[in-house]
């Protein structure tokens, strides 16, 4: 996806997502980079909220993982892409996990479908035993 010839990516930042404090750090880091890219106001909050949901999934359901943040220029549009990868148990039924209100834990079950609504692009790749990778982007309007 990101390897497409038309896209130019700046240096990527990767941070570990292992515990509670990393969720807060991920929120701050994503907000910082989004601001540098040119996002303002509501978009900054939408991005930080989506990051909070997905990184919490890593902390709650996997033993740990990492998040890579990249500022992206694709043709004339500029945006920010997040790749969140874990080596956890994976999700056996991704379609089910993307439905509002579905949770195998004690959560409200809005994390994955909610994060998709907050971002412009959202992709999840997961299978049982293989871990989970969520890639999401937001573009400047």
């Amino acid at each position, binding site marked *: 996806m990101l390897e497409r010839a038309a896209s130019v990516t700046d240096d990527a930042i990767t941070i570990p997502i292992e515990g509670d404090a990393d969720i807060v750090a991920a929120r701050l880091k994503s907000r910082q980079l989004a601001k540098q890219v040119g996002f303002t106001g509501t978009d900054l909050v939408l991005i930080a909220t989506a990051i*909070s*949901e997905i990184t919490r999934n890593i902390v709650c359901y996997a033993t740990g993982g990492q998040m890579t943040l990249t500022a992206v220029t694709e043709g004339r549009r500029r945006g920010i892409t997040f790749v969140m990868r874990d080596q956890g148990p994976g999700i056996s039924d991704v379609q089910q996990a993307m439905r509002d209100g579905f949770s195998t834990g004690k959560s409200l079950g809005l994390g994955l*479908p909610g994060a998709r609504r907050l971002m412009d692009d959202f992709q999840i790749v997961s299978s049982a035993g293989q871990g989970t990778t969520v890639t999401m982007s937001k573009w400047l309007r």
Partner: protein
Amino acid sequence: MPVPILKQGDILIASVQEAMSDSDLALLRDDLTSRIGEFHSLGVMIDVSTVDVLDSFATRTLLDIAENSRLRGAKMVIVGIQPPVAIAMVKLGLILDGIPTAHDLEDGIELMRRNVGKSRQRDR
């Protein structure tokens, strides 16, 4: 980083900080629940005006605090939800059902006084 809880008459006021972790929030929930009994508080006010992310965990914790407060005989009001935060919560599908909200601390105290006053009159 624990959240300081202020006592203002019958009301407990907690100002949630910007960079709250999940365990900070859980600690606040437990602290408030025990303080209500300690101070015989009738109201709990949570100020989120400096918070820029209220995600599903935070919302669930706020709902828990509201229910804990109710069970302990106090009412909860949330004040200061910022416009972008409200937009994000609606997009996420989060609903703070049945929890009174107010624009800021001042409006919250006014709302709380009315609510607490009502329940006092009922008790008589």
